[in-house]
């Protein structure tokens, strides 16, 4: 009886203790029960019959030699709500979201797509050094972001801009980060797509793969201790799941019982490495049970499937303080980044299939159209509008007179040029420094350890200066030297 009550506490009191419950309980063993609980005491001193006593596993004996065959032929099934044409398959799984919300899904995904195109072009034009697109994976971002609370903490890898887009991160800030201009919250320190936003609870992207996984677990543990009613979601690709940090993260999330959602975007490629070379098991979802983690595999290009799975995972992660693993199957339609040309390792036909036949945006559009919430006219209109929006924010960012960290755009007779400050005293330039030199040094957290006789490259990043328009002063190239 006591066991049942305990189980009910673990599983959520609204659920009865059905067959699944008992199975879960057996697998849980005595998890969730206090050390002093009689059931726990009982386990240790077993009866006289010949049952295994090993502390390491809760199992029966078997006298037949049999290796467990990893099941990769028919692996964990893929949960979906819509078919490829955007039609609901099982009406009871339709989340029945209001029109406004579904339109927000659609607009977020398409705006992201538009922004991706324009920023990719920017890199090709030499305006930014690097960019990574999100083509084909918009559904995974928006579906999961929509299922979370706005205060839930997000740890991303680098291909989750849609999460920020859904949380209404302004286009200007996306641009500012990529361009490293004065509006950049990161002050021009990070390479493009390494977004971070404190107000939107999106932890700044870090380049080394999978390092965010144990960090996310730690954050979730902190949320649990604070009783914050908050979940942490941790995104990573199927390639990053090969890193040692992923193993440590999963194991700790389970043993420390953290309210965390591990969201794996399995998009088929890690740069050029296909999944067949990345792992031999049944994807990432199959690893979850190995750690004692509730796991599911979903169709990542079905935004409702992603939404449903994330919503339920969130509810239970917080209620039961346990981790969940969602493996969203999708396809990376774009190149890995602007440094990659994926035609070197995959066929154009393959890419076209996903672009034309199984794209999260078109599937949602078909759904919208079948509900009468969208039509071709609105589509045309919205495309024009979103392009205009992105272009406007781009112009704001790279416009003449704009100020970049450490430099300025200045008008000269030959046209707009980027200047750095020369060795002259700032006063000569007719400029108003935002911060005094000593203030800049202090702010840069780097003391001035080297006397002027030591020529350390004058590196201290300095605050932007507000320059008077139209002064037409010619500034020699160079940099501010701290004396």
């Amino acid at each position, binding site marked *: 009886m006591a066991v049942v009550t305990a189980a009910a506490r673990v599983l959520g009191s609204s659920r009865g203790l059905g067959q699944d419950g008992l199975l879960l309980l057996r697998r849980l063993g005595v998890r969730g029960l206090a050390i002093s609980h009689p059931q726990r005491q009982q386990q240790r001193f077993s009866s006289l019959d010949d049952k295994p006593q090993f502390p390491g596993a809760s199992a029966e004996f078997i006298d037949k030699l049999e290796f467990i065959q990893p099941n990769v032929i028919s692996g964990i099934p893929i949960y979906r709500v819509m078919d490829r044409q955007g039609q609901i398959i099982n009406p009871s799984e339709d989340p029945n979201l209001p029109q406004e919300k579904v339109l927000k899904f659609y607009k977020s995904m398409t705006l992201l797509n538009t922004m991706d195109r324009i920023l990719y072009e920017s890199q090709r034009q030499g305006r930014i*050094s*690097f960019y990574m697109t999100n083509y084909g994976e918009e559904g995974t971002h928006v579906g999961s972001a929509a299922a979370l609370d706005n205060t839930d903490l997000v740890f991303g890898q680098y291909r989750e801009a849609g999460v920020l887009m859904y949380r209404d991160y302004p286009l200007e800030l996306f641009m500012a980060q990529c361009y*490293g201009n004065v509006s950049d919250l990161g002050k*021009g*320190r*990070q*390479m*493009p797509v*390494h977004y971070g936003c404190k107000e939107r609870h999106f932890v700044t992207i*870090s*380049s*080394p*793969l*999978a390092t965010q996984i144990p960090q996310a677990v730690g954050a979730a543990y902190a949320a649990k201790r604070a009783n914050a009613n908050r979940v942490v979601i941790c995104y990573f690709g199927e*390639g*990053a799941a*090969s*890193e*040692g*940090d992923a193993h440590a993260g999963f194991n700790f999330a389970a043993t420390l019982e953290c309210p965390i959602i591990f969201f794996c975007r399995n998009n088929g490629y*890690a*740069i*050029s*490495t296909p999944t067949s*070379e*990345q*792992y031999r098991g049944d994807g990432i979802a199959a690893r979850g049970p190995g750690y004692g983690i509730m796991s599911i595999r979903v169709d990542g290009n079905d935004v409702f499937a992603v939404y449903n799975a994330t919503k339920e995972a969130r509810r239970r992660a917080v209620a039961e303080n346990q981790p969940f693993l969602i493996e969203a199957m999708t396809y990376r339609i774009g190149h890995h980044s602007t440094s990659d040309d994926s035609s*070197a*390792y995959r066929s154009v036909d393959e890419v076209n299939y996903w672009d034309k036949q199984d794209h999260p945006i078109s599937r949602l559009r078909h759904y919208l159209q079948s509900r009468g919430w969208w039509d071709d006219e609105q589509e045309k209109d919205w495309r024009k509008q979103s392009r205009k929006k992105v272009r406007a924010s781009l112009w704001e960012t790279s416009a003449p007179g704009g100020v*970049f*960290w*450490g*430099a300025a755009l200045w008008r000269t007779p030959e046209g707009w040029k*980027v200047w*750095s400050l020369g060795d002259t005293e700032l006063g000569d330039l007719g400029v108003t420094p935002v911060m005094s030199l000593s203030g800049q040094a202090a702010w*840069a*957290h*780097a003391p001035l*350890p*080297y006397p002027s*006789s*030591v*020529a*350390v*490259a*004058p*590196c*201290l*990043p300095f605050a932007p200066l507000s320059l008077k328009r139209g002064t037409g002063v010619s500034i020699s190239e160079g*940099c501010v030297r701290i004396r």
Partner: protein
Amino acid sequence: MAAVSGLVRRSLEQVTVREAINQGMDEELERDEKVFLLGEEVAQYDGAYKVSRGLWKKYGDKRIIDTPISEMGFAGIAVGAAMAGLRPICEFMTFNFSMQAIDQVINSAAKTYYMSGGLQPVPIVFRGPNGASAGVAAQHSQCFAAWYGHCPGLKVVSPWNSEDAKGLIKSAIRDNNPVVVLENELMYGVPFELSSEAQSKDFLVPIGKAKIERQGTHITVVSHSRPVGHCLEAATVLSKEGIECEVINMRTIRPMDIETIEASVMKTNHLVTVEGGWPQFGVGAEICARIMEGPAFNFLDAPAVRVTGADVPMPYAKILEDNSVPQVKDIIFAIKKTLNI
């Protein structure tokens, strides 16, 4: 009768650093069956920076191996293979990611020969791009010369031009010790003339020997990797003003060829070190300390000076990045200050 037979036509070929490393690896793969290359994207993709272009096509899956994404994993596998008698070349996409495997590099590769009393060699090569690139910010731009140069048990080399790159990778592969080869991404595409001697299959650059790239009398300028080119540029500018710099290309970080530097300082009486890495506990710091401990100290007419990268994580914005690495004008400034000009 013209001594035609005495004429040696030295055919100079333009070879990029990338091609030089590729050639070096190709020749060693051909020479010794035990040599193999592993890392992320090294096979069909031809390498993340195309350094292993064509090798998978030529040698196949058994010699050129793509690994899953786990630096710790594949570095460990490579170390194990080396212990078992193979000669792996372990490529890190950049040395920044080697931090995820550093336990394997130091605790397993570097220390094992000593800890086993000489019984267990680890003939492994760790290679990849090191140091600053362009517009890739802090986590892709750190220089690891000082980190790896600190550890006994490792040999650490840092090539500058194609001749260095080819000769050093070959020496590294033939060396029975763990060798860290710190390449430079920005140098990969730079062509240099390779003499016919350097083009031969047995051309080796000895590990532990620096090269004097330019003779001079007024000041010794010591550097490694890409900054060597900047030092030579600075020397060209200064020679117009009558200052003759002796530029030394270290080639090897560990074991450091301090003798060449000492001999040069005893001749010129002035020393400037130039590196891309951070100043604290860096390569320049070690050079200065050793000069003080050796005979060359008494020949110095001015304190030795270090020109280094800025003591900050590499920023992304172009103008900030440019000012975070030593530029030619900084080297000139340091040289003039040292010479009190």
